[in-house]
C-alpha cells in the first residue's frame, strides 16, 4: 500500500488508530471462518463517526477497497479483508449514546456488543430481543450487517425488526441518516436493504434500536424424545395448535453428548431433546403450556423438565448455546453449516442428512432452531487425516443443496459472505441477482465497499446515473417535483 495513502490515513485517525505492522494485521486476516484469509494493507480503528467518514472519503478518492469489521465473529467470511485494501475496525466506536426507557429505544455506536444493550436496560425490566449465540462478543454493527437472529426470533423477529434507524457513511464518503427513533419516516425503506447487506452498502456508525419489556412470565420446557422425527412432529403439532412459542430448539444425540461433556447442562439421555420456551402474560403461558405438555406426551416424550426460574433456565440454555463450541469435545475438527428448510420439510431433509452421514463416513451432529427450520449440521472430521477437511466441506455443501431443493435457503443467519457466494445461483436466477445488483450499484457504483462478497461473480455497474438530473418528463412539464 502506497506510503502517501498510509500517511493520509494516519492523519485522519487518532494516534494508535492505524495499524500496518504484519503482526498487527494478522489478527484481521479472517473472521471466525478462519480458513479464508487475506492480508489487508492497513487496518484503521476510528474512534468517531467523523473518523470513519474521513477514512471512507480517502478510500473513495484513491479507489482503495475497504471492509468494515465489527468483532470478527462472522461465520461466512463477511469481514474477510480485500488483499492490500483497508479494514475499518469499529470496535472503538463502542458507546451507548442514549437509553430512552419510556419510548423503549436505545441509540448505540456499532461496536457495542449485543449483550451489553440488554445488560444496560435490564434494571428497567427491558431487553434487546435478537439474541445470537455469540451475543457476548458480536457487535451491533455486525448484527445489522448480517441481520442476525437467535433462538427467540421465532416469536420476536430478527435484527431487521428491531433496528429503527441508522447513521451510515456511504461508499462515496457521504454521511446519511436513514430511518430514526420515530416510526414511518418518509422515503424509500433503505434500512431494509442496509440490514442484511453484509457490509457491502455502507458503514454503519450509529444505530437506534427498539427494546422490549420483559414478559410477565417465562416457562422453559426441556423434553427428551426417542427420535428426531418424533421431536419434529411435536414441533409441528405445537404450531398446528395455534401456538407460536418464544423459542423451539432441537438437538440430537451427538450434540447432546458434546454439550454434556462441555458445560453439563444435565440434559436427559435421549436421541433428541426439544427446548420449548413460552413467554407472555401469565395466564396465556399457563394455558399454552398445558397444550405443549400434552402434545409432547402424545409424541411419546421420554422425559420432561420444566424450568420456572432464571437459574434453571440458564442451565438449559447454556447447553444449547454451547453446542457449537462443545463439538470440540467429541471431534478434533468440525464444520458448521447453516441452512433453512420449511419447517414441514424437516423430517425429509433430516432423513437425507442421515443417509449422507452413513454414505460419507463422517459423523454429523444436528442442532437447530426447529421452530423456523434453521438447521446447523455440524460435520465432524479430523484435519490430520489427509483429504478429510475437503471431504467435510463437500458434505456440508451437499446439505445446502438439500435445503435449497426443499424450498429453503442457503443461509438463515450466518450470511453469504465470501463463503457461500458461489451457491447464490442455485437459489437465485440471473435476473434475481441482477435486481439485487441494482441496489448495490445505487449505493456503491465504484464497487469499493466490501467487494467480492454476496454476489457470485464480480460485476461492474455500467453507466452511473450520477447525481440527480432533470428527467425528460419533468423538462416536458409532464411531471414535476416539489
Amino acid at each position: 500500500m502506497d506510503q502517501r495513502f498510509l500517511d493520509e490515513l494516519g492523519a485522519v485517525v487518532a494516534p494508535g488508530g492505524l495499524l500496518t505492522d504484519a503482526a498487527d494485521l494478522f489478527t484481521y486476516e479472517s473472521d471466525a471462518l478462519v480458513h479464508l484469509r487475506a492480508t489487508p494493507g492497513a487496518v484503521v480503528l476510528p474512534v468517531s463517526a467523523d473518523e470513519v467518514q474521513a477514512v471512507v472519503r480517502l478510500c473513495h478518492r484513491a479507489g482503495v477497497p475497504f471492509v468494515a469489521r465489527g468483532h470478527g465473529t462472522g461465520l461466512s467470511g463477511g469481514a474477510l479483508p480485500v488483499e492490500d485494501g483497508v479494514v475499518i475496525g469499529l470496535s472503538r466506536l463502542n458507546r451507548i449514546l442514549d437509553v430512552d426507557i419510556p419510548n423503549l429505544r436505545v441509540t448505540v455506536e456499532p461496536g457495542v456488543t449485543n449483550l451489553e444493550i440488554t445488560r444496560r436496560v435490564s434494571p428497567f425490566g427491558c431487553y434487546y430481543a435478537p439474541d445470537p449465540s455469540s451475543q457476548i462478543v458480536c457487535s451491533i454493527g455486525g448484527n445489522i450487517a448480517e441481520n442476525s437472529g437467535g433462538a427467540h426470533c421465532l416469536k420476536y423477529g430478527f435484527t431487521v425488526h428491531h433496528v429503527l434507524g441508522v447513521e451510515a457513511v456511504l461508499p462515496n464518503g457521504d454521511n446519511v441518516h436513514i430511518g430514526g427513533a420515530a416510526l414511518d419516516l418518509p422515503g424509500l425503506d433503505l434500512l431494509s436493504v442496509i440490514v442484511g447487506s453484509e457490509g457491502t452498502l455502507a458503514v454503519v456508525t450509529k444505530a437506534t434500536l427498539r427494546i422490549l419489556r420483559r414478559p410477565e412470565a417465562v416457562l422453559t420446557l426441556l423434553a427428551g424424545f426417542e427420535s428426531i422425527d418424533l421431536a419434529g412432529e411435536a414441533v409441528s403439532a405445537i404450531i398446528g395448535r395455534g401456538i407460536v412459542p418464544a423459542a423451539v430448539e432441537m438437538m440430537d444425540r451427538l450434540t447432546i453428548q458434546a454439550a454434556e461433556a462441555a458445560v453439563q447442562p444435565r440434559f436427559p439421555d435421549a436421541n433428541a431433546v426439544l427446548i420449548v420456551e413460552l413467554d407472555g402474560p401469565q395466564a396465556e403461558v399457563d394455558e399454552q403450556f398445558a397444550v405443549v405438555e400434552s402434545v409432547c406426551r402424545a409424541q411419546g416424550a421420554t422425559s420432561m423438565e420444566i424450568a420456572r426460574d432464571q437459574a434453571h433456565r440458564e442451565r438449559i440454555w447454556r447447553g444449547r448455546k454451547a453446542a457449537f463450541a462443545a463439538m470440540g469435545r467429541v471431534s478434533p475438527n468440525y464444520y458448521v453449516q447453516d441452512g433453512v428448510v420449511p419447517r414441514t420439510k424437516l423430517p425429509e431433509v433430516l432423513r437425507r442428512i442421515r443417509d449422507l452421514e452413513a454414505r460419507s463416513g463422517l459423523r454429523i451432529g444436528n442442532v437447530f432452531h426447529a421452530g423456523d427450520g434453521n438447521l446447523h449440521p455440524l460435520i465432524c472430521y479430523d484435519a490430520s487425516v489427509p483429504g478429510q477437511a475437503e471431504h467435510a466441506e463437500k458434505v456440508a455443501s451437499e446439505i445446502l443443496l438439500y435445503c435449497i431443493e426443499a424450498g429453503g435457503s442457503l443461509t438463515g443467519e450466518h450470511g453469504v459472505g465470501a463463503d457461500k457466494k458461489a451457491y447464490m445461483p442455485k437459489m437465485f436466477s440471473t435476473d434475481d441477482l441482477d435486481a439485487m445488483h441494482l441496489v448495490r450499484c445505487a449505493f456503491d457504483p465504484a464497487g469499493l465497499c466490501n467487494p467480492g462478497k454476496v454476489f457470485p461473480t464480480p460485476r461492474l455497474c455500467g453507466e452511473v446515473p450520477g447525481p440527480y438530473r432533470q428527467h425528460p418528463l419533468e423538462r416536458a412539464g409532464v411531471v414535476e417535483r416539489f
Partner: protein
Amino acid sequence: MASSSLDTIAQAAHARWGTPASRAAGPADAILDQLPAVVLEPTTVPMLADMLRWANADKVAVVPRGAGTKLTWGRTPPRIGAVLATTRIDGSIDHCAGDLTATVPAGARLEEVNAALAREGQWLPLDPRLADRATIGGIVATNDSGPRRQKHGTPRDLIIGAEMALVDGRTAKAGGRVVKNVAGYDLARLLCGSFGALAIITRATFKLAPRPPASRTIVASAPQARPLADLALALLSSPLTPAAIELQSRPDRLLLRFETTEAAANQQAAAAEALCGAHGVDASMVSGDAEAAVWREHQADLSSADGTLVRVAVLPAQVGDVLGHAERVAAQHALECRVAGRIALGVVYARIGAGEHTRPSPESLRAAIDALRQNAWARGGSAVVVSVDPAIGHVVDPWGDVGDALPLMRALKARFDPNGILNAGHGPGNI
C-alpha cells in the same frame, strides 16, 4: 410520452393486446380527474411484464393499480399514459399452514386472502384502511397497516419474499418462502412502502399468525385526550400485550384490544381496567358483537375519504404534546381537526376539514400542514399527507423533507426505473 400523444399510446396498446387486456379508460379509471390514455389489465404475469417492457421502451408513464382505493392522493402526474392493473392476473393462494406462511398474488384482495387462510385457523394479521377492497400489492406498496400494528407490525414486518416485474420486462424474486433467510439483499422489504416507484409487485410471501381464540376490548373514556396519552404510555411500561391501542377523538377514547387465549384475554382486560382506574379514566369492557361494532365504526372512521388526512409520526411519549399542538393549530386557522390512531406507537392521523361546509381554504390547509410538519420535524418525526381533498390537493407536498438520504433514494429509483415511467414524481419523497 412527452412525444407520443395519448391517442397513439392507446392505439399501440390495443394493437398489441386487444380487448379485454387493453381498453379505453372510463370515468372510474380517472385519477384526480385525469383519464389515463389506456387501461391495461393483464391476465398473467408474463403479459404484465411484457406491457411494462413496452411502456418502458416507449416511455409511457405507468400507474400501477390494485383496487385503486387510494390513488387520488397528493399529486398525480398531469398526464397518465397507462394504468396497469393487477386485479385480473390469475393465480391462487398458496397456503402452507404447517409452515405458517402463504404466497399470494398481488392482485388478490386482503379480505379474500384472509377468508382462505381462516380455513386453517390462520391469517395475515393486517387491518389497513378499506381492508375489504385493498389488494395485497397495494398494501405492500403503501406498507399500510391498521390498529393491530401494535402487535403485528406492518407488511414490512411480515413479508418474507416477493416476486416483481422490472421495467425492462424481466421478472425477479427476492427472499423466499422460509421465515428465516439472509441470502441476498432484502428487496421484498424494500418494495414495502415504495409506492410502485421501483417495480410492480406480482406475488408476495408472508409469515402468518394463528387466529387468536379470544378477544376483549376495553373502551377507556376521558374528557380530554391528554390523560389518554398518559394512559397509553403507562400501558407500554406494563407487562400487558395489547393487539391494539387506538386513540379516537370526539368523543376522546382509547380502545385497548386483547387478542389471546380466553383466560389471558380476560385477565389482561381486567388488568387494563385497573390501570385505567389508577389514571382516573372511565373504562368498560366489550366483547362479541358489541366489540365488533366498536371496531367496525373505528375502521370506517379511519377509512373515510373526508377531508385531508395527515399521518403524524413522533415518539410515543411526544404524542400528548402533538395532540395539544394540533388543537392549537386548528384553532388558529379555524379548521376542523380530529386526531386518531396508533398512539402507543407514536403514529396518529389528523383529519383536517372533513365535511363539505368545513372545507378549508388552500392557504389555511397548507399553513396547518406546515405547522404540523414543523412541530413533528422538531421532534425528529414526520408528517405525511396520506389523502387529500381532491379540490385542494395540488397545494400540498405530501411528503415534506425526506432528509439527507434523498440522493440515494433517487439513485435507487434511477437504477430500477431509468426512464422514470413508474409513478414518476409520485413515489416516496417525490422520487
